[in-house]
């Protein structure tokens, strides 16, 4: 009885000295992000090849209104900043600040998604749907895939906040926060490319 308690205790101590396990999971996530780069790369390539195939329908310059897109760009950039603040708070061990910044990040992300949905609805209203032309198919797929990623990130972030309230900052929750912050910054970088290639180059 006592010997098994001892082994268990030493085992747990051993467990605490296992930061490399969490580091290994972080490395795996970096590799996952590379695969996501390939997916977005494929959609970007498709968009660039098909962006002039408007099939007689509206083209980028007829459809895009930069005002709303610039607003949502700033919102997403701000959310990346607050996400960074969340990680800083976590590194200082401040759980409440961490939760607060994550909540603000999630709110900004939700605003971004809201704006995107209203943009899509507006376009569909004007008769520019996925089936109108190859250009629009590629547009909705590229921008929508980014939006889908952000939406999944939102669910994930809320789930993580629940875990943080229950368990506090542990090596495991710490790694999980680092992973989602990587994901969030990654989506920001992808958006910069979307903004440039789709919107800026589209209206110019």
């Amino acid at each position, binding site marked *: 009885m006592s010997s*098994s308690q001892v*082994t*268990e205790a*030493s*085992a747990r101590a*051993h*467990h605490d000295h*296992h930061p*490399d396990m969490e580091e*290994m*999971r972080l*490395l*795996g996530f970096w*590799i*996952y992000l*590379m*695969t*996501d780069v*390939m*997916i977005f790369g*494929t*959609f970007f390539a*498709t968009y660039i*090849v*098909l962006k002039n*195939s*408007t*099939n007689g329908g509206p083209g980028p310059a007829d459809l895009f209104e930069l005002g709303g897109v610039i607003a949502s760009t700033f919102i997403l950039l701000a959310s990346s900043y607050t996400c960074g603040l969340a990680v800083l708070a976590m590194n200082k061990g401040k759980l409440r600040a961490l939760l607060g910044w994550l909540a603000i990040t999630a709110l900004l992300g939700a605003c971004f998604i809201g704006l995107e949905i209203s943009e899509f609805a507006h376009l569909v209203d004007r008769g520019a*749907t*996925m*089936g*109108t*032309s*190859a*250009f629009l*198919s*590629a547009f*909705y*797929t590229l921008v929508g895939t980014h939006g889908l990623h952000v939406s999944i990130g939102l*669910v*994930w972030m809320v*789930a*993580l906040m*629940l*875990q943080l309230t229950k*368990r506090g900052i542990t090596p*495991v929750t710490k790694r*999980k926060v680092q992973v989602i912050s990587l994901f969030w910054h990654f989506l920001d970088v992808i958006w910069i490319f979307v903004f440039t290639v789709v919107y800026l180059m589209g209206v110019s």
Partner: protein
Amino acid sequence: MLESIKNWASDFFVTGDPLIYGADAAIIITLVAIVFVLTYFKKWGWLWRNWLTTVDHKKVGIMYILSAFLMMFRGGVDALLMRTQLAMPELQFLQPDHYNEIFTTHGVIMILFMAMPFMFGLFNVAVPLQLGARDVAYPFMNALSFWLFFAGAMLFNLSFVIGGSPDAGWLAYPPYSELMYNPGVGQDFYIWGIQISGIGSLMTGINFIVTILKLRAPGMKLMKMPMFSWSVLASCIAIIFSFPILTATLALLFLDRYGGAHFFTLDGGGNPMMYINLIWMWGHPEVYIIVLPAFGIFSEVVSTFSRKKLFGYKSMVYAMMIISILSFLVWAHHFFTMGSGANVNAFFALSTMVIAIPTGVKVFNWLFTMFRGRISFESPMLWTTGFIPCFVIGGMTGVLLSVAPADFQYHNSYFLIAHFHQVIIGGVVFGYFAGLYYWWPKLFGFKLNERIGKWAFWFWNIGFYLCFMPQYVLGLDGMTRRLVTYSWDKGWWGLNLVSSIGAGLMGIAFLFQVWQIVHGIKHYRSNMDTTGDPWDGRTLEWSIPSPAPHYNFAVLPQVSDQDEWWEEKQRRQKEGYTAVAPELSPIHMPNNSGIPIMMAGCWFLAGFGFVFHWLWLIIPGLAGVALCMLAHSFNYDTDHYIPVEDIKHTEASLRGAANL
């Protein structure tokens, strides 16, 4: 009411073909038999605890290989049906529509649902053991990968009896795979079967890269790593860069069919050539993804059975890495005839020819390893020696095909069919067989019968040459691929008949292998491997008992040499060697989990919903996937420790207490 149900049922189930009614009956009888046997022997709990929820990489590997064998049977039956249809001119054995479905499913199953799982099975079986690791980097994800593959494969196979199979070729070129020309559900089964299993493949790629980079035994520098593990690394790097392209491409095809998009349609500004470029940007690396691990196996086997260090270890590593990179630069050689222009064709022709150089380096390395070695021809070595001439011929016809101007003659002819079957059967299938025979004792603790294995080997080889050599000639005579029948006046019948006989011999060879396994299980007591090292092996997997305990290594090995276990055996024979009793400590292991199989089940339901446009099934399916992910995320009790007493007990029963 009754009438509408009848109509729906005749739409839903494939009807009207006696072959398919036979299959229906066979599937139902098999399912009933499985359920009956499991219930009668009260094995449900055992199955769930030991297999369905396992995260042990060795068991996951066994499940992969078992599934691959089942799929080889299905794909092989497809092949035999085709060769029966083509055996004589003007046969009416298969209808053209049915024939289209069969060559499509044959290709998809053999590459994606036979070769890939067979390969992943061998990864799982051998890589952690070779590295001196206790597990893969992400055991839960590993089990999930398997179940996603399995769900995808089952979804794809279901198309045979429900709704109808895809018939647009193994790569589903548009516009024929588009809704306008292909309104049935077959193409949707294709998209979702591959998509779901593809997620699993991608995760396996990530898993094994991290395993190899992070979990090598102390002292095992990359340049001391066994060659099979190197080949797995090369293959996985190609996986993580190419499989996302497949995912994206199939998503676009899905949007065309389901969302009315115009990516690859002929109207609406779509561009079918986009698809053909994209699919081959995945498809070409895929060929190297499956063949590189086979090269790794040959390297292990040649060195073990020649009792020599592998010749040119470093050049072998570089060759593999170069092949893995070059595989991404050659995709357009699959459509030289599609009007890309002379400069583009020249680039892709040259980059294709360049691949022959590192491949040639490897072949010479294997030959030099054998040179002056003490060679013994047991099963694994037999397959390796069978592979070399086959692959060299196949490689040379590949170089012929890579000559762009000449390809206008070979394109889509039986010459091409013969070429890729020669490199894929000769390279990949023979390689995986070598690997399976090689690691079999490590997995199950007994050796397979060599005599039956030799029969299988010779039937495979003779059948292979009889089947495919005539096809080179047929191709040059102008016989095109995907041809359902031909007339007497073409003069092709003699060669086709020989080819079909060869295919039949390979079918018999497969039966020999099944018999060999059944025979092995029946007589396992007389063929037990008590040493753990039946081949006098060189790498770490042979330093532990067979079958390997679930934690693999009681004590993590310390590595100092390239063939560590071989060197260790030399050290032990020297005078003055004293064995040091290792100090055991509790081993950290992951818990079993039912989430992977449930999540894959939800994907299956969602996929089935997508195929039939059933929103009422898609939504709960995807919600189930999300819930499974959340359930896993909220579960912090994911691993346990094996106490020292248990390890001592296990080791003692496997090795005998004295040898611990």
